[in-house]
């Protein structure tokens, strides 16, 4: 060090001490200065808070460890995909909403299914009573899927399907639907969520126990690697873990732990990691703590790249990359003063973009009250378009890279995730940790800690525990589901069962039963059953009969 440099170093140490003195002496607001996840925050971050070499911790966009983004050009080549999650009522109604969204500049589809579909029951099952078409679209057969995708060019549009327990069955309907439209499965692009581990942990729409469910997932990975190569076979999801109450670090850790389990299972099934890992994608929440969320996305990319290359021996860089979809945080929205939700969503969406997301859903302001109206959905989509087109943030890659604060947060989240990985390992892996209820208890603990913080006023929610207004009645228009949808679905199913070739349908179901007992690829059998007009519930019943039901561990 030369004299000048030494001199300036001494000055900066003095300057820091001076700032610290002034800071300590000053009066502070009497609140807890913590992140949304409850982690204490320093008032200032500096070079001393950031360890690590630039090359090994950050690198360049499009190169290992991808902290700064998975593409060398990021949004200079292509903006993120604006993908609004939609689905309600009948296949016909959702098909109309899809066309509305495409007409307003949306660039990909995302399907929400109703609870009966998510749980593998037909619309006419006793358990489905009152639930058909309520929180998503009812799809019980290939015929329903054909109505859903009617007039939409399946070779051109990418479609995401949020379904897990019966995901391989719905994927079979989609592939078969493409075949009926004359589209080669090789051309189909999209994602099926198919992340069963987080269902047991957080979202709770399951079909069968973990081991056979994981076998179905490896069957999907195996089939798609050969026949549907552009399909993302699992969207490893932190969204529901976070919405169930986890912290940012827990979302990051449990999601990546689940992802690593799928990689282990794929390898154990004899697949080459580089054959299936490039088709794994991720799905994260973007919550209200702006910087913590950006750091979470950056940490996810870095951790996954290291694990896939160094632990799992992947050689193809595409296997190392976290490509992810983001949805803004539904739980951050309030039923009180619902228009304020537009603002919350905009900040969350901005964090996702600054964190380098590949696609984005922005929630509508009315979603704590009902499914969104067209007007509310349009405002949500326009929010993304304002971010993309007006505020000039998409021109610079990883614009917060090098911020002492964001880098320190990224490092901290990575370290917290590593501590969870070690604990999960100690418990015998992620399946064992889930069956013990450990992960569910961790999420629950965070959820009640947050609720307590809101109730004692240390976390503020505008319109709920501060700036409260006396509100009488709904202040905005709401979307209602027509109860006739349930009757129409029941009639459609009765007609389908009457018209189909009964012997062919029975044979297809018998073939599935045989495959359950043996090793044959189940997805192939589901595609054949789709073409034979077997229903979702019939196929799921075979699986439930062969593999049993999942029982949730008691945690409360």
């Amino acid at each position, binding site marked *: 060090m030369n004299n000048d440099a030494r001199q300036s170093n001494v000055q900066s140490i003095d300057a820091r001490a001076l700032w610290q003195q002034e800071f300590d002496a000053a009066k502070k607001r009497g609140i807890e200065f913590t992140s949304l996840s409850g982690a204490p925050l320093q008032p200032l971050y500096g070079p001393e808070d950031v360890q690590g070499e630039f090359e090994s911790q950050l690198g360049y966009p499009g190169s290992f460890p991808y902290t700064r983004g998975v593409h060398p050009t990021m949004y200079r080549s292509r903006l993120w995909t604006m993908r609004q999650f939609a689905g309600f009522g009948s296949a016909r109604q959702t098909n109309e909403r899809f066309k509305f969204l495409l007409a307003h500049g949306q660039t990909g589809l995302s399907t929400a299914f109703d609870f009966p579909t998510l749980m593998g029951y037909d619309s006419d099952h006793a*358990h489905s009573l*009152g639930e058909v078409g309520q929180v998503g679209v009812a799809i019980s057969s290939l015929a329903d899927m054909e109505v859903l995708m009617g007039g939409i060019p399946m070779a051109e549009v990418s479609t995401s399907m949020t379904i897990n327990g019966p995901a391989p069955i719905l994927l079979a309907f989609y592939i078969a639907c493409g075949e009926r439209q004359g589209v080669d499965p090789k051309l189909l692009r999209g994602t099926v969520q198919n992340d069963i581990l987080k269902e047991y942990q957080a979202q*709770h729409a399951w079909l069968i126990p973990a081991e056979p469910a994981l076998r179905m997932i490896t069957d999907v990975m195996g089939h798609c690697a050969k026949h549907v190569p552009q399909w993302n076979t699992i969207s490893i999801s932190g969204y529901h873990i976070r919405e169930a109450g986890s912290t940012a670090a827990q979302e990051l850790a449990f999601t990546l732990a689940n992802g690593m389990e799928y990689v282990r299972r794929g390898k154990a099934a004899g697949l080459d990691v580089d054959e299936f890992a490039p088709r794994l994608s991720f799905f994260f929440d973007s919550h209200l703590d702006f910087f913590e969320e950006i750091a979470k996305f950056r940490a996810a990319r870095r951790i996954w790249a290291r694990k896939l290359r160094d632990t799992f021996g992947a050689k193809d860089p595409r296997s190392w990359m976290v490509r992810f979809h983001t949805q803004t945080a539904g739980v951050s929205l309030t039923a009180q003063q619902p228009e304020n939700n537009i603002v919350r969503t905009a900040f969350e969406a901005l964090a996702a973009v600054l964190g380098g997301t590949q696609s984005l859903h922005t929630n509508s302001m009315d979603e704590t009250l009902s499914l969104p109206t067209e007007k509310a959905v349009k405002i949500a989509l326009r929010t993304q378009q304002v971010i993309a087109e007006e505020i000039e943030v998409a021109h610079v890659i990883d614009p917060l890279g090098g911020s002492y604060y964001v880098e320190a947060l990224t490092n901290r989240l990575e370290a917290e995730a590593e501590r969870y990985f070690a604990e999960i390992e100690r418990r015998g892996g992620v399946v064992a940790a889930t069956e013990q209820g450990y992960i569910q208890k961790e999420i629950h603990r965070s959820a009640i800690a947050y609720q307590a913080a809101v*109730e004692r006023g240390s976390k503020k929610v505008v319109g709920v525990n501060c700036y409260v207004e006396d509100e009488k009645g709904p202040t905005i228009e709401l979307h209602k589901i027509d109860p006739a949808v349930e009757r129409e679905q029941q009639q459609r199913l009765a007609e389908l069962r009457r018209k189909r070739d009964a012997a062919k349908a029975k044979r297809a179901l018998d073939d599935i039963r045989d495959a359950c007992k043996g090793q044959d690829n189940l997805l192939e059998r589901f595609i054949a059953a789709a073409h034979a007009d077997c229903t979702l519930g019939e196929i799921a019943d075979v699986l439930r009969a062969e593999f049993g039901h999942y029982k949730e561990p008691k945690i*409360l």
Partner: protein
Amino acid sequence: MTLRKIRVLVGKPGLDGHDRGAKTVASALRDYGMEVIYTGLHQTPEAIAEIAAQEDVDVVGLSILSGAHMALFPRVRAELVKRGMGHVLLTGGGIIPQDDMQALESGGYAKLFGPGTPTEAIAKWIQGEMEKRWKAEGAQS
């Protein structure tokens, strides 16, 4: 003044998997000194009423975020009545539009609680209602 511990069943009817609210409320009511039984997910109205009868609870709270509230509240009540449990305080919450809430409340259901309600408000309301009932019972006997 509470004479004995209030017994509460927190139930998740239907196929809805959203249990953050149910579990948060269940934990909070325990902290307020109530005995709380949580049914777990995906329960039929019959199963919920059966547990309520077996456990002889004072209160049944249903958490519904599936949009099926207009179907499920009446079914749970009918099953409770069938088992001689028509007297329980039936309440709940979830994603329920305000006019549906009003329709349920004017149809004789107990108060429903929407998103953002402090757990303290739910606990105080239950305590208040139970005290009124116990006072009325005391006056009769």
